[in-house]
């Protein structure tokens, strides 16, 4: 299980491949891999988005991401889990978050992947500031 919060841009597909290759004993154990990748759009709530700055509360983010991952691992029979989340300045088209789950069968992989992304979105302390055509704005209510 690996969790990383990083200011660096990342390629989720390379990360998934590298993680899978680096886990001794994983090959042969899983029959399903479920992946969610969240990417920055160039539109939100009726405005064009040029860039987004993600602020977070580092020690709290790490703690809560770990807890969500542990909960998923306790609830479903999963073989491995990878979570990568960006912070800092992002541009449209860049991946924001990646969740990958390896499991023997697809039900557990899908369910755990969905659980991790949904829970981290409400529990991990990240805040979005968008740079739109009309200037900077904090996104504090989702529509």
């Amino acid at each position, binding site marked *: 299980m690996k969790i990383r919060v990083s200011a660096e841009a990342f390629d989720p597909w390379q990360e998934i491949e590298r993680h899978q290759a680096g886990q001794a004993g994983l090959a042969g154990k899983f029959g399903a891999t479920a992946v969610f990748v969240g990417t920055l759009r160039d539109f939100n709530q009726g405005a064009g988005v040029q860039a987004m700055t993600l*602020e977070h*509360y580092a*020690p709290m983010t790490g703690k809560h991401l770990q807890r969500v991952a542990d909960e998923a691992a306790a609830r479903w029979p999963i073989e491995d889990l990878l979570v990568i989340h960006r912070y800092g300045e992002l541009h449209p088209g860049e991946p924001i978050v990646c969740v990958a789950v390896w499991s023997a069968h697809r039900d557990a992989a899908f369910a755990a992947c969905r659980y991790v992304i949904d829970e981290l979105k*409400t529990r*991990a*302390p*990240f805040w979005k500031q968008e740079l739109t055509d009309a200037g900077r704005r904090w996104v*504090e209510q989702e529509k």
Partner: protein
Amino acid sequence: MSITVRFFASIRERLGKGEDNIDIKGIATVADVWNKSAKIPLPPNVLAAVNMEYARTDQAVRDGDEVAFFPPVTGGAR
């Protein structure tokens, strides 16, 4: 007792500071920490955490605690 206070996102910008250290005498809650450091009324939608755990504003604080205040986290529409 000594409390480390942290503010994030729009709250940080509004108060013009991201971090503070305050000294409070006697029994105090999260709301007392806000009042002493922010010096404006606590906005209704502000979330709080004590030592990285979400907390209610009536939770008691202890010497050495880190108390954080921030807007609702924004995860995006489903």
